[in-house]
Protein backbone atom coordinates (compact mmCIF):
# COMPACT_ATOMS: atom_id res chain seq x y z
CA UNK A 1 0.00 0.00 0.00
CA UNK A 2 2.73 2.37 1.05
CA UNK A 3 4.77 1.31 -1.97
CA UNK A 4 1.91 2.27 -4.21
CA UNK A 5 1.42 5.65 -2.66
CA UNK A 6 5.12 6.38 -3.08
CA UNK A 7 4.78 5.37 -6.71
CA UNK A 8 1.92 7.73 -7.40
CA UNK A 9 3.86 10.51 -5.72
CA UNK A 10 6.74 9.84 -8.04
CA UNK A 11 4.38 9.81 -10.99
CA UNK A 12 2.87 13.12 -10.00
CA UNK A 13 6.26 14.67 -9.56
CA UNK A 14 7.31 13.42 -12.97
CA UNK A 15 4.17 14.84 -14.58
CA UNK A 16 4.68 18.16 -12.88
CA UNK A 17 8.27 18.29 -14.12
CA UNK A 18 7.17 17.40 -17.65
CA UNK A 19 4.56 20.15 -17.78
CA UNK A 20 7.02 22.59 -16.27
CA UNK A 21 9.54 21.88 -19.05
CA UNK A 22 6.88 22.03 -21.74
CA UNK A 23 5.40 25.32 -20.74
CA UNK A 24 8.40 27.11 -19.27
CA UNK A 25 9.38 28.77 -22.59
CA UNK A 26 5.82 29.89 -23.18
CA UNK A 27 5.60 31.30 -19.70
CA UNK A 28 8.84 33.18 -20.18
CA UNK A 29 7.63 34.70 -23.44
CA UNK A 30 4.41 35.85 -21.79
CA UNK A 31 6.25 37.18 -18.77
CA UNK A 32 8.81 39.16 -20.76
CA UNK A 33 6.16 40.64 -23.03
CA UNK A 34 5.23 42.69 -19.98
CA UNK A 35 8.84 43.56 -19.17
CA UNK A 36 9.87 47.16 -19.01
CA UNK A 37 13.41 46.56 -20.16
CA UNK A 38 14.46 45.44 -23.60
CA UNK A 39 16.92 42.94 -22.16
CA UNK A 40 16.16 39.35 -21.37
CA UNK A 41 18.39 39.20 -18.36
CA UNK A 42 15.97 40.30 -15.72
CA UNK A 43 12.42 41.38 -15.20
CA UNK A 44 12.71 45.02 -14.30
CA UNK A 45 9.05 46.00 -13.98
CA UNK A 46 5.57 45.60 -15.42
CA UNK A 47 4.74 47.61 -18.51
CA UNK A 48 2.58 47.52 -21.64
CA UNK A 49 5.07 49.44 -23.70
CA UNK A 50 5.75 46.59 -26.11
CA UNK A 51 2.07 46.12 -26.79
CA UNK A 52 1.76 49.78 -27.58
CA UNK A 53 4.74 49.59 -29.92
CA UNK A 54 3.26 46.55 -31.59
CA UNK A 55 -0.01 48.26 -32.35
CA UNK A 56 1.83 51.23 -33.79
CA UNK A 57 3.88 48.99 -36.09
CA UNK A 58 2.02 49.47 -39.37
CA UNK A 59 3.79 46.62 -41.18
CA UNK A 60 2.79 44.28 -38.39
CA UNK A 61 -0.80 45.51 -38.46
CA UNK A 62 -0.92 45.07 -42.23
CA UNK A 63 0.27 41.47 -41.80
CA UNK A 64 -2.39 40.89 -39.17
CA UNK A 65 -5.07 42.22 -41.50
CA UNK A 66 -3.85 39.93 -44.27
CA UNK A 67 -3.87 36.96 -41.96
CA UNK A 68 -7.39 37.63 -40.78
CA UNK A 69 -8.75 38.10 -44.30
CA UNK A 70 -6.93 35.00 -45.46
CA UNK A 71 -8.13 32.93 -42.49
CA UNK A 72 -11.76 33.95 -42.85
CA UNK A 73 -11.87 33.56 -46.64
CA UNK A 74 -10.08 30.22 -46.74
CA UNK A 75 -12.31 28.98 -43.92
CA UNK A 76 -15.48 30.01 -45.72
CA UNK A 77 -14.40 28.43 -49.01
CA UNK A 78 -13.25 25.26 -47.26
CA UNK A 79 -16.47 25.04 -45.27
CA UNK A 80 -18.47 24.84 -48.50
CA UNK A 81 -16.08 22.45 -50.23
CA UNK A 82 -15.52 20.28 -47.14
CA UNK A 83 -19.20 19.98 -46.22
CA UNK A 84 -20.34 19.09 -49.73
CA UNK A 85 -17.40 16.71 -50.02
CA UNK A 86 -18.25 14.95 -46.76
CA UNK A 87 -21.90 14.60 -47.77
CA UNK A 88 -21.09 13.09 -51.15
CA UNK A 89 -18.38 10.86 -49.65
CA UNK A 90 -20.78 9.45 -47.09
CA UNK A 91 -23.41 8.83 -49.79
CA UNK A 92 -20.96 6.78 -51.84
CA UNK A 93 -21.49 3.06 -51.93
CA UNK A 94 -18.27 2.16 -53.72
CA UNK A 95 -15.84 -0.42 -52.55
CA UNK A 96 -13.00 2.06 -53.02
CA UNK A 97 -14.70 4.47 -50.56
CA UNK A 98 -12.02 3.93 -47.91
CA UNK A 99 -9.25 4.85 -50.35
CA UNK A 100 -11.13 7.97 -51.42
CA UNK A 101 -11.62 9.08 -47.83
CA UNK A 102 -7.93 8.59 -47.24
CA UNK A 103 -7.03 10.66 -50.30
CA UNK A 104 -9.40 13.40 -49.16
CA UNK A 105 -7.48 13.96 -45.93
CA UNK A 106 -4.05 13.47 -47.45
CA UNK A 107 -3.11 17.18 -47.21
CA UNK A 108 -3.05 16.67 -43.43
CA UNK A 109 -0.44 13.97 -43.75
CA UNK A 110 1.82 15.31 -46.50
CA UNK A 111 4.76 17.20 -44.91
CA UNK A 112 4.01 20.91 -45.09
CA UNK A 113 7.27 21.74 -46.79
CA UNK A 114 6.45 19.38 -49.66
CA UNK A 115 2.92 20.72 -49.97
CA UNK A 116 4.37 24.25 -50.07
CA UNK A 117 6.89 23.39 -52.77
CA UNK A 118 4.33 21.53 -54.85
CA UNK A 119 1.88 24.42 -54.66
CA UNK A 120 4.56 26.91 -55.61
CA UNK A 121 5.57 24.85 -58.65
CA UNK A 122 1.94 24.40 -59.61
CA UNK A 123 1.08 28.10 -59.40
CA UNK A 124 4.26 28.90 -61.32
CA UNK A 125 3.15 26.52 -64.07
CA UNK A 126 -0.25 28.15 -64.20
CA UNK A 127 1.46 31.55 -64.27
CA UNK A 128 -0.73 32.71 -61.40
CA UNK A 129 0.68 35.87 -59.81
CA UNK A 130 1.81 35.07 -56.28
CA UNK A 131 -0.22 36.97 -53.72
CA UNK A 132 -3.53 36.79 -51.88
CA UNK A 133 -5.11 34.48 -54.46
CA UNK A 134 -2.36 31.87 -54.29
CA UNK A 135 -2.35 32.10 -50.50
CA UNK A 136 -6.10 31.60 -50.45
CA UNK A 137 -5.91 28.53 -52.69
CA UNK A 138 -3.02 27.10 -50.71
CA UNK A 139 -4.71 27.58 -47.34
CA UNK A 140 -7.96 26.13 -48.69
CA UNK A 141 -6.06 23.00 -49.69
CA UNK A 142 -5.04 22.24 -46.13
CA UNK A 143 -8.18 23.65 -44.46
CA UNK A 144 -10.67 21.46 -46.34
CA UNK A 145 -9.62 18.20 -44.64
CA UNK A 146 -10.26 19.58 -41.14
CA UNK A 147 -13.84 20.44 -42.00
CA UNK A 148 -14.34 17.32 -44.08
CA UNK A 149 -13.25 15.05 -41.23
CA UNK A 150 -15.49 16.78 -38.69
CA UNK A 151 -18.57 16.78 -40.93
CA UNK A 152 -17.99 13.19 -42.01
CA UNK A 153 -17.88 12.09 -38.38
CA UNK A 154 -21.12 13.89 -37.61
CA UNK A 155 -22.81 12.41 -40.69
CA UNK A 156 -21.75 8.94 -39.59
CA UNK A 157 -23.72 9.49 -36.37
CA UNK A 158 -26.79 10.70 -38.24
CA UNK A 159 -29.64 8.24 -38.79
CA UNK A 160 -29.80 7.63 -42.57
CA UNK A 161 -33.56 7.25 -42.37
CA UNK A 162 -33.82 10.99 -41.58
CA UNK A 163 -33.11 11.99 -45.18
CA UNK A 164 -35.25 9.10 -46.38
CA UNK A 165 -38.09 10.40 -44.22
CA UNK A 166 -37.69 13.86 -45.75
CA UNK A 167 -37.78 12.45 -49.28
CA UNK A 168 -40.75 10.32 -48.34
CA UNK A 169 -42.59 13.43 -47.15
CA UNK A 170 -42.10 15.13 -50.49
CA UNK A 171 -38.62 16.65 -50.43
CA UNK A 172 -36.31 16.34 -53.42
CA UNK A 173 -32.75 15.22 -52.59
CA UNK A 174 -31.60 18.84 -52.65
CA UNK A 175 -34.40 20.04 -50.34
CA UNK A 176 -33.71 17.14 -47.98
CA UNK A 177 -30.08 18.25 -47.86
CA UNK A 178 -30.98 21.88 -47.16
CA UNK A 179 -33.78 21.23 -44.65
CA UNK A 180 -32.45 18.21 -42.78
CA UNK A 181 -28.81 17.32 -43.37
CA UNK A 182 -27.34 20.82 -43.33
CA UNK A 183 -28.92 22.04 -40.06
CA UNK A 184 -27.89 18.81 -38.36
CA UNK A 185 -24.22 18.98 -39.43
CA UNK A 186 -23.92 22.73 -38.80
CA UNK A 187 -22.24 22.34 -35.38
CA UNK A 188 -19.63 20.10 -36.99
CA UNK A 189 -19.11 22.63 -39.80
CA UNK A 190 -18.60 25.34 -37.19
CA UNK A 191 -16.13 23.40 -35.07
CA UNK A 192 -14.22 22.20 -38.13
CA UNK A 193 -14.03 25.76 -39.46
CA UNK A 194 -12.73 27.02 -36.15
CA UNK A 195 -9.95 24.46 -36.21
CA UNK A 196 -9.18 25.29 -39.85
CA UNK A 197 -9.08 28.99 -38.99
CA UNK A 198 -6.56 28.35 -36.24
CA UNK A 199 -4.43 26.34 -38.67
CA UNK A 200 -4.58 29.07 -41.30
CA UNK A 201 -3.68 31.75 -38.77
CA UNK A 202 -0.41 30.13 -37.76
CA UNK A 203 0.85 28.62 -40.98
CA UNK A 204 4.35 29.66 -41.98
CA UNK A 205 5.83 26.84 -43.99
CA UNK A 206 3.27 26.62 -46.78
CA UNK A 207 2.58 30.36 -46.88
CA UNK A 208 6.22 31.31 -47.27
CA UNK A 209 6.41 29.38 -50.56
CA UNK A 210 3.38 31.00 -52.12
CA UNK A 211 2.96 34.47 -50.61
CA UNK A 212 4.96 36.34 -53.24
CA UNK A 213 7.13 39.39 -52.62
CA UNK A 214 4.50 41.93 -51.58
CA UNK A 215 2.16 40.15 -49.19
CA UNK A 216 3.06 39.02 -45.73
CA UNK A 217 0.96 37.19 -43.17
CA UNK A 218 1.41 37.55 -39.45
CA UNK A 219 3.30 34.28 -38.90
CA UNK A 220 5.61 35.08 -41.82
CA UNK A 221 6.25 38.52 -40.37
CA UNK A 222 7.14 37.04 -37.00
CA UNK A 223 9.40 34.49 -38.61
CA UNK A 224 11.30 37.04 -40.69
CA UNK A 225 11.66 39.49 -37.79
CA UNK A 226 13.02 36.86 -35.48
CA UNK A 227 15.94 36.37 -37.89
CA UNK A 228 17.06 39.88 -36.99
CA UNK A 229 16.81 39.14 -33.28
CA UNK A 230 13.95 38.72 -30.88
CA UNK A 231 12.48 41.95 -29.64
CA UNK A 232 10.00 42.15 -26.76
CA UNK A 233 7.52 43.35 -29.38
CA UNK A 234 7.50 39.82 -30.77
CA UNK A 235 6.89 38.53 -27.27
CA UNK A 236 3.82 40.73 -27.05
CA UNK A 237 2.61 39.51 -30.42
CA UNK A 238 3.15 35.87 -29.44
CA UNK A 239 1.19 36.40 -26.26
CA UNK A 240 -1.72 37.88 -28.18
CA UNK A 241 -1.67 35.10 -30.74
CA UNK A 242 -1.50 32.51 -28.01
CA UNK A 243 -4.50 34.07 -26.31
CA UNK A 244 -6.46 34.13 -29.56
CA UNK A 245 -5.71 30.51 -30.47
CA UNK A 246 -6.42 29.33 -26.92
CA UNK A 247 -9.77 31.08 -27.09
CA UNK A 248 -10.53 29.43 -30.42
CA UNK A 249 -9.53 26.07 -28.96
CA UNK A 250 -11.74 26.65 -25.94
CA UNK A 251 -14.74 27.56 -28.09
CA UNK A 252 -14.07 24.47 -30.21
CA UNK A 253 -13.98 22.14 -27.22
CA UNK A 254 -17.06 23.76 -25.68
CA UNK A 255 -18.87 23.06 -28.97
CA UNK A 256 -17.74 19.46 -28.77
CA UNK A 257 -18.55 18.77 -25.14
CA UNK A 258 -21.88 20.50 -25.57
CA UNK A 259 -22.71 18.12 -28.37
CA UNK A 260 -21.65 15.11 -26.31
CA UNK A 261 -23.65 16.25 -23.34
CA UNK A 262 -26.72 16.67 -25.49
CA UNK A 263 -26.37 13.10 -26.69
CA UNK A 264 -25.98 11.80 -23.19
CA UNK A 265 -29.03 13.73 -22.03
CA UNK A 266 -31.10 12.26 -24.81
CA UNK A 267 -30.16 8.73 -23.85
CA UNK A 268 -31.01 9.33 -20.23
CA UNK A 269 -34.37 10.81 -21.04
CA UNK A 270 -35.10 7.97 -23.41
CA UNK A 271 -34.46 5.45 -20.71
CA UNK A 272 -36.16 7.35 -17.95
CA UNK A 273 -39.38 8.09 -19.78
CA UNK A 274 -39.92 4.68 -21.34
CA UNK A 275 -42.87 3.22 -19.72
CA UNK A 276 -45.07 5.88 -21.14
CA UNK A 277 -47.38 7.11 -18.42
CA UNK A 278 -49.24 9.75 -20.32
CA UNK A 279 -51.21 7.20 -22.30
Amino acid sequence: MKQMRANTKLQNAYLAFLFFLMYLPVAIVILFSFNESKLYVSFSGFSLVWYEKLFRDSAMMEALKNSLILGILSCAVSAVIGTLGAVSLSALKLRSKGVLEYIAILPLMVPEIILGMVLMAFFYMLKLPFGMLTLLIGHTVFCVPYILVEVKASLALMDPSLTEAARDLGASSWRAFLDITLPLVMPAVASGSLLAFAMSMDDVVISIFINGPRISTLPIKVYTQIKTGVTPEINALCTIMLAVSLTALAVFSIFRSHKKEENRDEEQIDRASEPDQEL
Partner: protein
Amino acid sequence: MKNKLIELRNLTKNFDDQQVLKGISLDIYENEFLTLLGPSGCGKTTTLRIIAGFEEPSDGQVLFNGIEISKVPPYKREVNTVFQKYALFPHLNVADNIAFGLNLKKVEKSVISQKVERMLKMVGLSGFENRDVTLLSGGQQQRVAIARALVNEPKVLLLDEPLGALDAKIRKQMQLELKKIQREVGITFVYVTHDQEEALSMSDAVVVMNNGEIQQIGTPTDIYNEPENRFVASFIGESNIIEGHMIRDYLVEFDDFQFECVDKGFEDNEEVEVVLRPEDLDIVEPEHAKITGVVRDITFKGVHYEIMIETEKRMYNVHTTDYAPVGKKIGLLFGPEDIHVMCKMGAY
Protein backbone atom coordinates in the same frame (compact mmCIF):
# COMPACT_ATOMS: atom_id res chain seq x y z
CA MET B 1 -64.70 -6.82 -54.26
CA LYS B 2 -62.52 -3.87 -53.27
CA ASN B 3 -60.26 -2.15 -55.78
CA LYS B 4 -56.67 -3.17 -56.27
CA LEU B 5 -54.42 -0.29 -55.24
CA ILE B 6 -50.93 -1.71 -55.53
CA GLU B 7 -49.87 -4.66 -57.63
CA LEU B 8 -46.43 -6.18 -57.30
CA ARG B 9 -45.57 -8.33 -60.29
CA ASN B 10 -42.74 -10.79 -60.08
CA LEU B 11 -40.40 -8.46 -58.17
CA THR B 12 -36.80 -9.50 -57.78
CA LYS B 13 -34.03 -7.62 -56.02
CA ASN B 14 -30.32 -8.36 -55.96
CA PHE B 15 -27.83 -6.77 -53.59
CA ASP B 16 -24.37 -7.49 -54.98
CA ASP B 17 -24.50 -11.22 -55.69
CA GLN B 18 -27.27 -11.95 -53.22
CA GLN B 19 -30.86 -12.30 -54.35
CA VAL B 20 -33.08 -11.02 -51.53
CA LEU B 21 -36.37 -11.10 -53.45
CA LYS B 22 -37.08 -14.04 -55.69
CA GLY B 23 -40.19 -13.11 -57.57
CA ILE B 24 -42.76 -11.44 -55.30
CA SER B 25 -46.28 -11.09 -56.71
CA LEU B 26 -48.88 -9.50 -54.53
CA ASP B 27 -52.09 -7.49 -54.78
CA ILE B 28 -52.81 -4.87 -52.14
CA TYR B 29 -56.38 -3.58 -51.92
CA GLU B 30 -57.95 -0.30 -50.81
CA ASN B 31 -58.63 0.12 -47.09
CA GLU B 32 -56.77 -3.05 -46.28
CA PHE B 33 -54.48 -3.70 -43.32
CA LEU B 34 -51.90 -5.93 -44.90
CA THR B 35 -48.95 -7.35 -42.99
CA LEU B 36 -45.70 -8.66 -44.39
CA LEU B 37 -44.59 -11.24 -41.85
CA GLY B 38 -41.37 -13.20 -41.75
CA PRO B 39 -38.06 -13.75 -39.98
CA SER B 40 -35.29 -11.16 -40.42
CA GLY B 41 -33.69 -11.33 -43.83
CA CYS B 42 -36.80 -12.70 -45.51
CA GLY B 43 -37.16 -9.68 -47.79
CA LYS B 44 -40.16 -8.02 -46.12
CA THR B 45 -38.44 -4.69 -45.48
CA THR B 46 -36.95 -4.66 -49.00
CA THR B 47 -40.44 -5.18 -50.42
CA LEU B 48 -41.69 -2.23 -48.37
CA ARG B 49 -38.77 -0.04 -49.46
CA ILE B 50 -39.53 -0.83 -53.10
CA ILE B 51 -43.13 0.29 -52.59
CA ALA B 52 -41.88 3.48 -50.87
CA GLY B 53 -39.39 4.13 -53.67
CA PHE B 54 -36.17 3.89 -51.65
CA GLU B 55 -35.07 0.86 -53.65
CA GLU B 56 -35.56 0.06 -57.29
CA PRO B 57 -36.47 -3.53 -58.11
CA SER B 58 -33.90 -5.45 -60.17
CA ASP B 59 -36.73 -6.88 -62.20
CA GLY B 60 -40.52 -6.91 -62.14
CA GLN B 61 -43.17 -4.21 -61.87
CA VAL B 62 -44.80 -2.07 -59.22
CA LEU B 63 -48.23 -0.82 -60.27
CA PHE B 64 -50.07 1.91 -58.38
CA ASN B 65 -53.66 2.29 -59.54
CA GLY B 66 -52.58 0.40 -62.64
CA ILE B 67 -49.65 2.71 -63.44
CA GLU B 68 -46.06 1.50 -63.37
CA ILE B 69 -44.15 3.47 -60.68
CA SER B 70 -40.93 1.57 -60.01
CA LYS B 71 -38.84 4.44 -61.44
CA VAL B 72 -40.82 7.24 -59.73
CA PRO B 73 -38.80 8.90 -56.91
CA PRO B 74 -40.22 8.60 -53.37
CA TYR B 75 -41.22 12.26 -53.12
CA LYS B 76 -43.62 11.90 -56.03
CA ARG B 77 -45.46 8.85 -54.67
CA GLU B 78 -48.76 8.89 -52.84
CA VAL B 79 -47.38 6.77 -50.04
CA ASN B 80 -45.81 7.74 -46.72
CA THR B 81 -43.64 5.76 -44.40
CA VAL B 82 -43.35 5.31 -40.65
CA PHE B 83 -39.80 4.24 -39.86
CA GLN B 84 -38.63 1.71 -37.34
CA LYS B 85 -36.64 4.26 -35.34
CA TYR B 86 -39.23 7.02 -35.93
CA ALA B 87 -36.73 9.20 -37.87
CA LEU B 88 -38.15 12.41 -36.42
CA PHE B 89 -36.15 15.51 -37.32
CA PRO B 90 -34.33 16.36 -34.08
CA HIS B 91 -33.92 20.07 -34.90
CA LEU B 92 -37.66 20.63 -35.36
CA ASN B 93 -40.38 20.61 -32.71
CA VAL B 94 -43.43 18.34 -32.80
CA ALA B 95 -45.59 20.69 -34.88
CA ASP B 96 -42.81 21.45 -37.39
CA ASN B 97 -42.09 17.75 -37.79
CA ILE B 98 -45.71 17.05 -38.62
CA ALA B 99 -45.97 20.09 -40.88
CA PHE B 100 -42.83 19.19 -42.84
CA GLY B 101 -44.65 17.59 -45.77
CA LEU B 102 -47.34 20.29 -45.92
CA ASN B 103 -44.73 23.07 -45.84
CA LEU B 104 -43.02 21.51 -48.85
CA LYS B 105 -46.33 21.53 -50.68
CA LYS B 106 -46.70 25.24 -49.84
CA VAL B 107 -50.00 24.71 -48.05
CA GLU B 108 -51.35 27.83 -46.35
CA LYS B 109 -50.11 28.38 -42.80
CA SER B 110 -53.53 28.46 -41.19
CA VAL B 111 -54.56 25.25 -42.92
CA ILE B 112 -51.33 23.61 -41.78
CA SER B 113 -51.82 24.47 -38.14
CA GLN B 114 -55.40 23.23 -38.31
CA LYS B 115 -54.33 19.92 -39.80
CA VAL B 116 -51.47 19.52 -37.36
CA GLU B 117 -53.83 20.08 -34.46
CA ARG B 118 -56.29 17.52 -35.81
CA MET B 119 -53.53 14.94 -36.30
CA LEU B 120 -52.19 15.48 -32.80
CA LYS B 121 -55.67 14.95 -31.45
CA MET B 122 -56.02 11.72 -33.36
CA VAL B 123 -52.79 10.26 -32.01
CA GLY B 124 -53.58 11.50 -28.51
CA LEU B 125 -50.92 14.18 -28.23
CA SER B 126 -53.01 17.37 -28.15
CA GLY B 127 -51.04 20.29 -26.76
CA PHE B 128 -47.67 18.79 -27.66
CA GLU B 129 -47.11 21.23 -30.58
CA ASN B 130 -44.07 22.99 -29.19
CA ARG B 131 -42.40 20.07 -27.47
CA ASP B 132 -38.88 19.05 -28.39
CA VAL B 133 -39.18 15.69 -30.18
CA THR B 134 -35.95 14.39 -28.67
CA LEU B 135 -37.47 14.74 -25.21
CA LEU B 136 -40.49 12.54 -25.94
CA SER B 137 -40.73 8.90 -24.94
CA GLY B 138 -40.50 6.18 -27.55
CA GLY B 139 -44.25 5.71 -27.73
CA GLN B 140 -44.87 9.43 -28.09
CA GLN B 141 -42.21 9.74 -30.80
CA GLN B 142 -43.90 6.96 -32.72
CA ARG B 143 -47.23 8.78 -32.50
CA VAL B 144 -45.63 11.93 -33.89
CA ALA B 145 -44.11 9.86 -36.70
CA ILE B 146 -47.54 8.43 -37.54
CA ALA B 147 -49.10 11.89 -37.48
CA ARG B 148 -46.31 13.27 -39.67
CA ALA B 149 -47.02 10.61 -42.29
CA LEU B 150 -50.81 10.70 -42.15
CA VAL B 151 -51.16 14.48 -42.31
CA ASN B 152 -50.19 14.27 -45.99
CA GLU B 153 -53.28 12.15 -46.61
CA PRO B 154 -51.45 9.38 -48.47
CA LYS B 155 -53.31 6.56 -50.20
CA VAL B 156 -51.07 4.06 -48.47
CA LEU B 157 -49.21 4.17 -45.19
CA LEU B 158 -46.13 1.98 -45.00
CA LEU B 159 -44.99 0.93 -41.54
CA ASP B 160 -41.59 -0.70 -41.07
CA GLU B 161 -41.64 -2.56 -37.74
CA PRO B 162 -42.93 0.61 -36.11
CA LEU B 163 -43.37 -0.96 -32.69
CA GLY B 164 -40.10 -2.87 -32.65
CA ALA B 165 -38.32 -0.46 -30.32
CA LEU B 166 -41.13 -0.20 -27.75
CA ASP B 167 -41.54 -2.37 -24.69
CA ALA B 168 -44.22 -5.05 -24.52
CA LYS B 169 -46.93 -3.10 -22.70
CA ILE B 170 -46.85 0.00 -24.90
CA ARG B 171 -46.56 -2.21 -27.94
CA LYS B 172 -49.89 -3.87 -27.12
CA GLN B 173 -51.52 -0.51 -26.64
CA MET B 174 -50.10 0.90 -29.87
CA GLN B 175 -51.32 -2.17 -31.78
CA LEU B 176 -54.89 -1.44 -30.80
CA GLU B 177 -54.45 2.22 -31.54
CA LEU B 178 -52.91 1.68 -34.96
CA LYS B 179 -55.83 -0.55 -35.88
CA LYS B 180 -58.22 2.15 -34.68
CA ILE B 181 -56.42 4.86 -36.65
CA GLN B 182 -56.48 2.70 -39.77
CA ARG B 183 -60.25 2.29 -39.51
CA GLU B 184 -60.64 6.00 -38.82
CA VAL B 185 -58.66 7.31 -41.79
CA GLY B 186 -59.78 4.43 -44.01
CA ILE B 187 -56.60 4.03 -46.04
CA THR B 188 -54.40 1.05 -46.81
CA PHE B 189 -51.74 0.13 -44.26
CA VAL B 190 -48.84 -2.06 -45.29
CA TYR B 191 -47.20 -3.24 -42.11
CA VAL B 192 -43.89 -5.07 -41.76
CA THR B 193 -43.19 -7.18 -38.70
CA HIS B 194 -41.48 -10.34 -37.54
CA ASP B 195 -43.91 -10.66 -34.63
CA GLN B 196 -46.55 -13.25 -35.55
CA GLU B 197 -48.88 -12.28 -32.73
CA GLU B 198 -48.85 -8.66 -33.90
CA ALA B 199 -49.56 -9.78 -37.46
CA LEU B 200 -52.46 -12.02 -36.47
CA SER B 201 -54.16 -9.53 -34.18
CA MET B 202 -54.02 -6.46 -36.46
CA SER B 203 -54.25 -7.56 -40.06
CA ASP B 204 -56.95 -8.14 -42.63
CA ALA B 205 -54.44 -10.02 -44.72
CA VAL B 206 -51.12 -11.59 -43.77
CA VAL B 207 -48.33 -12.33 -46.23
CA VAL B 208 -45.89 -14.85 -44.79
CA MET B 209 -42.43 -14.53 -46.35
CA ASN B 210 -39.24 -16.52 -46.10
CA ASN B 211 -35.99 -16.41 -48.07
CA GLY B 212 -37.30 -13.80 -50.49
CA GLU B 213 -40.40 -15.77 -51.39
CA ILE B 214 -44.04 -15.56 -50.38
CA GLN B 215 -45.02 -18.68 -48.45
CA GLN B 216 -48.71 -17.97 -47.98
CA ILE B 217 -51.21 -15.14 -48.34
CA GLY B 218 -54.42 -15.25 -46.33
CA THR B 219 -56.51 -13.93 -43.48
CA PRO B 220 -55.04 -14.38 -40.00
CA THR B 221 -57.38 -17.33 -39.34
CA ASP B 222 -56.46 -18.99 -42.63
CA ILE B 223 -52.78 -18.59 -41.92
CA TYR B 224 -53.17 -20.05 -38.44
CA ASN B 225 -55.64 -22.82 -39.10
CA GLU B 226 -54.72 -23.77 -42.63
CA PRO B 227 -50.96 -23.28 -42.98
CA GLU B 228 -49.87 -24.27 -46.45
CA ASN B 229 -46.50 -25.68 -45.51
CA ARG B 230 -44.20 -26.60 -42.70
CA PHE B 231 -42.57 -23.15 -42.61
CA VAL B 232 -45.84 -21.30 -42.07
CA ALA B 233 -47.02 -23.84 -39.51
CA SER B 234 -43.87 -23.58 -37.44
CA PHE B 235 -43.44 -19.80 -37.80
CA ILE B 236 -47.02 -18.97 -36.77
CA GLY B 237 -47.75 -20.30 -33.33
CA GLU B 238 -46.54 -23.55 -31.91
CA SER B 239 -47.29 -26.82 -33.59
CA ASN B 240 -46.62 -30.52 -33.67
CA ILE B 241 -45.60 -31.35 -37.24
CA ILE B 242 -45.74 -35.05 -38.06
CA GLU B 243 -44.87 -36.86 -41.27
CA GLY B 244 -47.47 -39.24 -42.59
CA HIS B 245 -49.39 -40.14 -45.73
CA MET B 246 -52.90 -39.82 -47.06
CA ILE B 247 -54.62 -43.20 -47.45
CA ARG B 248 -57.38 -41.58 -49.45
CA ASP B 249 -59.54 -38.45 -49.14
CA TYR B 250 -60.56 -37.82 -45.52
CA LEU B 251 -58.25 -40.56 -44.14
CA VAL B 252 -54.66 -39.93 -43.04
CA GLU B 253 -52.12 -42.25 -41.43
CA PHE B 254 -49.35 -41.17 -39.06
CA ASP B 255 -47.57 -42.68 -36.07
CA ASP B 256 -48.87 -46.11 -37.33
CA PHE B 257 -52.53 -45.18 -36.78
CA GLN B 258 -55.21 -44.10 -39.21
CA PHE B 259 -57.28 -41.01 -38.46
CA GLU B 260 -60.30 -39.47 -40.07
CA CYS B 261 -59.73 -35.92 -41.17
CA VAL B 262 -61.40 -33.12 -43.14
CA ASP B 263 -58.72 -32.78 -45.83
CA LYS B 264 -59.00 -34.01 -49.39
CA GLY B 265 -57.53 -33.49 -52.81
CA PHE B 266 -54.26 -35.32 -52.23
CA GLU B 267 -53.20 -38.32 -54.25
CA ASP B 268 -53.77 -41.67 -52.64
CA ASN B 269 -50.80 -42.61 -50.49
CA GLU B 270 -49.16 -39.17 -51.01
CA GLU B 271 -46.50 -38.32 -48.45
CA VAL B 272 -47.80 -35.39 -46.38
CA GLU B 273 -47.13 -33.46 -43.21
CA VAL B 274 -49.72 -33.16 -40.48
CA VAL B 275 -50.10 -30.18 -38.15
CA LEU B 276 -51.59 -30.66 -34.69
CA ARG B 277 -51.79 -27.41 -32.73
CA PRO B 278 -50.88 -27.97 -29.03
CA GLU B 279 -54.12 -26.35 -27.85
CA ASP B 280 -56.19 -28.75 -29.99
CA LEU B 281 -54.87 -31.80 -28.15
CA ASP B 282 -56.45 -33.20 -24.99
CA ILE B 283 -55.07 -35.62 -22.47
CA VAL B 284 -57.25 -38.57 -21.47
CA GLU B 285 -56.86 -41.98 -19.87
CA PRO B 286 -54.75 -44.20 -22.19
CA GLU B 287 -57.60 -46.59 -23.04
CA HIS B 288 -59.63 -43.76 -24.65
CA ALA B 289 -57.04 -42.80 -27.28
CA LYS B 290 -55.04 -44.33 -30.13
CA ILE B 291 -51.78 -42.57 -29.40
CA THR B 292 -50.47 -42.97 -25.86
CA GLY B 293 -47.40 -41.71 -24.09
CA VAL B 294 -45.77 -40.68 -20.84
CA VAL B 295 -45.68 -37.16 -19.38
CA ARG B 296 -42.03 -36.05 -19.41
CA ASP B 297 -42.41 -32.42 -18.40
CA ILE B 298 -45.17 -30.06 -17.30
CA THR B 299 -44.88 -26.27 -17.09
CA PHE B 300 -47.47 -23.89 -15.72
CA LYS B 301 -48.05 -21.06 -18.22
CA GLY B 302 -50.80 -19.10 -16.49
CA VAL B 303 -53.88 -19.89 -18.55
CA HIS B 304 -52.78 -23.44 -19.35
CA TYR B 305 -50.18 -26.10 -18.71
CA GLU B 306 -47.60 -26.94 -21.34
CA ILE B 307 -47.10 -30.69 -21.22
CA MET B 308 -44.41 -32.57 -23.09
CA ILE B 309 -45.59 -36.11 -23.81
CA GLU B 310 -43.22 -38.76 -25.10
CA THR B 311 -44.92 -41.34 -27.28
CA GLU B 312 -43.35 -44.29 -29.01
CA LYS B 313 -42.53 -42.17 -32.07
CA ARG B 314 -41.92 -38.61 -30.91
CA MET B 315 -42.44 -35.83 -28.38
CA TYR B 316 -45.84 -34.06 -28.42
CA ASN B 317 -46.43 -30.57 -27.11
CA VAL B 318 -49.87 -30.18 -25.52
CA HIS B 319 -51.49 -27.04 -24.10
CA THR B 320 -54.31 -27.92 -21.74
CA THR B 321 -55.89 -26.75 -18.53
CA ASP B 322 -55.79 -30.32 -17.17
CA TYR B 323 -52.98 -31.33 -14.91
CA ALA B 324 -51.01 -34.56 -15.22
CA PRO B 325 -47.96 -35.42 -13.10
CA VAL B 326 -44.62 -36.26 -14.67
CA GLY B 327 -44.33 -39.98 -15.36
CA LYS B 328 -48.03 -40.59 -15.78
CA LYS B 329 -49.16 -42.66 -18.75
CA ILE B 330 -51.86 -40.87 -20.72
CA GLY B 331 -53.61 -40.87 -24.10
CA LEU B 332 -53.73 -38.06 -26.70
CA LEU B 333 -57.18 -37.22 -27.98
CA PHE B 334 -58.07 -35.08 -30.99
CA GLY B 335 -60.89 -34.94 -33.52
CA PRO B 336 -60.91 -34.95 -37.33
CA GLU B 337 -61.17 -31.15 -37.47
CA ASP B 338 -58.06 -30.76 -35.29
CA ILE B 339 -55.93 -32.47 -37.93
CA HIS B 340 -54.54 -30.25 -40.67
CA VAL B 341 -52.82 -31.94 -43.60
CA MET B 342 -50.22 -30.07 -45.72
CA CYS B 343 -48.18 -30.83 -48.80
CA LYS B 344 -44.73 -32.02 -47.89
CA MET B 345 -41.88 -29.67 -48.68
CA GLY B 346 -38.22 -30.57 -48.77
CA ALA B 347 -36.38 -27.42 -47.89
CA TYR B 348 -37.30 -26.84 -44.28
